[in-house]
């Protein structure tokens, strides 16, 4: 297990975006951009059932989350770990993220099942701290 320093955690608590790396069925890497959060133990992000990312993570939960300071591209934290997906609390979580990133609440989309992804850091690399 690995831990984030307070300064590294702050990067995740501020409204910086993260790139998430997952593994496609053939093992090749896939990158997407997400809103991100930190609960003191896990990196959290949110997605919707049926998308590429959760399908990849359900098959192979190994993941990277890389967060760059939007004011300084030379300050970043990369977390590698294992993802756990759950629908429980996912709607409340996407609403919290929406408030953090947009200042307004989340507008649920009909038929969309949100998923909360929790990543426990196994390895942390950082730059610019």
């Amino acid at each position, binding site marked *: 297990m690995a831990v984030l320093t307070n300064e590294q955690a702050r990067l995740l608590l501020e409204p910086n975006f993260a790139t998430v790396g997952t593994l496609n069925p053939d093992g090749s*890497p896939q990158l997407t951009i997400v809103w991100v959060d930190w609960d003191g133990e896990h990196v959290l992000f949110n997605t919707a059932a049926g998308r590429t990312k959760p399908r990849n993570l359900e098959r192979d939960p190994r993941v*990277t989350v890389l967060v760059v300071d939007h004011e300084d591209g030379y300050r970043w934290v990369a977390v590698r770990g294992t993802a756990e997906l759950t629908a429980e609390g996912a709607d409340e979580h996407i609403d919290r993220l929406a408030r953090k990133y947009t200042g307004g609440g989340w507008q649920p989309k009909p038929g969309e099942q949100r998923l909360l992804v929790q990543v426990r850091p196994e390895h942390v690399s950082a730059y610019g701290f």
Partner: protein
Amino acid sequence: MAQLTDRQREFIAENPYVGSVTTLRPDGSPHSTIVWVDADDGVVTFNTAVGRAKERYLRRDPRAAIMVVHPDNAYQWVSVSGPVELTTEGADAQIDHLAKKYLGKDEYPWRNPEETRITVRITPEKVDSAGFDE
């Protein structure tokens, strides 16, 4: 195969925006880091040094993905994935070019005589983007 549009290529080539690159560790798990990035002649390129993790990983498994995000507008981004080629030829000139692009300097200021620079060229197999309205 996929192709970058002119606007996607310019977005990468003409702005000092860093790229997130993901490679594969020997156990197949992903490894992500930040690089300076460029695009030309239909390929996306970055520069590293021989012996670094991503260079070693790419020699084992040449599959990579890279994403460049506008630092002031995260809803504009380009993501490219595909196989890479590694070459030391021209890699010193490339790191100088990247130093100009990112730092405004004619020469890469952190050159280390003990390291060999290497250029990584990603041939786009898949291109995704947002914020280009095309």
